């Protein structure tokens, strides 16, 4: 579950905070679990909701990370194909908060743009544009990490 939280957080500390709050929620609302779907999936949903809540709570207090800042992070020494979950996590965590939320929610959790817009309080169009922007940033970042080929071309 920490992996889920990590995707939504910008660092491990924040992720663990979310995880803690999420687990406390799980224990408090365990009676609300209706038994349909897997228990793991339910906990996962609780975690995602906790992460979103945390994001919305911090929305104003967090300073927006400049996108350019992310590019300046040098990353070296990754061979093609060894790009694993840890690396992708790093890339995601480098994203600005808004991009990260949309990307996670759409790509991995499978929310629709409409749902994302409602949850985060943005328009559907904004969700779409943020997603494509996030993809672009991620691709560029991965290219930087990998050298050519992995993100840009199928293969």
């Amino acid at each position, binding site marked *: 579950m920490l992996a889920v939280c990590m995707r939504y957080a910008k660092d491990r500390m924040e992720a663990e905070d979310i995880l803690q709050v999420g687990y406390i929620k799980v224990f408090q609302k365990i009676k609300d679990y209706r038994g349909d779907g897997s228990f793991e999936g339910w906990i996962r949903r609780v975690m995602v909701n906790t992460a979103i809540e945390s994001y919305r709570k911090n929305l104003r207090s967090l300073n927006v990370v400049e996108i350019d800042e992310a590019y300046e992070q040098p990353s070296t020494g990754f061979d093609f194909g060894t790009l694993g979950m840890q690396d992708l996590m790093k890339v995601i965590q480098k994203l600005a908060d808004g991009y990260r939320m949309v990307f996670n929610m759409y790509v991995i959790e499978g929310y629709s743009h409409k749902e994302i817009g409602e949850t985060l309080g943005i328009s559907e169009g904004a969700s779409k544009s943020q997603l494509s922007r996030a993809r672009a940033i991620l*691709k560029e970042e991965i290219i930087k990490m990998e050298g050519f080929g992995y993100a840009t071309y*199928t293969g």
Partner: protein
Amino acid sequence: MQPIQDKDFDQLFKNAFEDAEITPSRDLWSSIESEIEPKKKRIIPVYWLSAAAVLLITTVGFLVYQQQEVKPKQFANNVEPKVVKPVNEAQTVQNSEETITVPAEKLGQALPTTLKPAEGVAKITVKENIKTVEKQKIVTSPEMQKQEIVIAQVAQPKEDIKAKIEDAVSKVNQETVLASTSTVVKTDDVIGDDEQAESKGIRNVGDVVNLIVNKVDKRKDKFIQFRTDDDDSSLSSINIGPFKFGKKNKK
């Protein structure tokens, strides 16, 4: 060499994170645990603490209030027997010259009063115990009488003052008859009353509770009652709505 499709790109991430697990720090669980558990444990003690606090406050409050109240009450109790006193003296004086020594010891100055109106007064006397009268009849010598009576009255249990009054009132007629036959009736009720007045004070917690409950609860069956005849009190009855316990107070 096709540029990667958005769909494939998303799938790449999805696959990577599908079953991804990262082991959290070791002490994370303990902090979660400490957040979950105390909340459950604290619920009960808080209720108990508040209940105890309320009980304590009310008890102390009533104690203070009651201490202000009790003093005049004791006074009132002390006054009663004093009112009765002269009547008794007069009676004894009237009854016979033999018993003069007894009141002389107790209330020397009351002696010289005129003896004439005593007959009328004797009838008014309320505090008289039939038992003592009976004993007096049997014993002939005045000195013996004295002792007998004194003993009898000391042995008399510290009954409730009300009970005694009722007792006495019911026997007034007999008394008056006895008085008119001019048997030697010596009344040492003065002593008895004095003792009662003292014993009526607050001796223990039971008395305090009874006093409070009597003030608050006007029903016949009190909310809670203690028996305080002897020095230590014991719970004699409880009446909380449908739940009742114990015999009624012997009032």
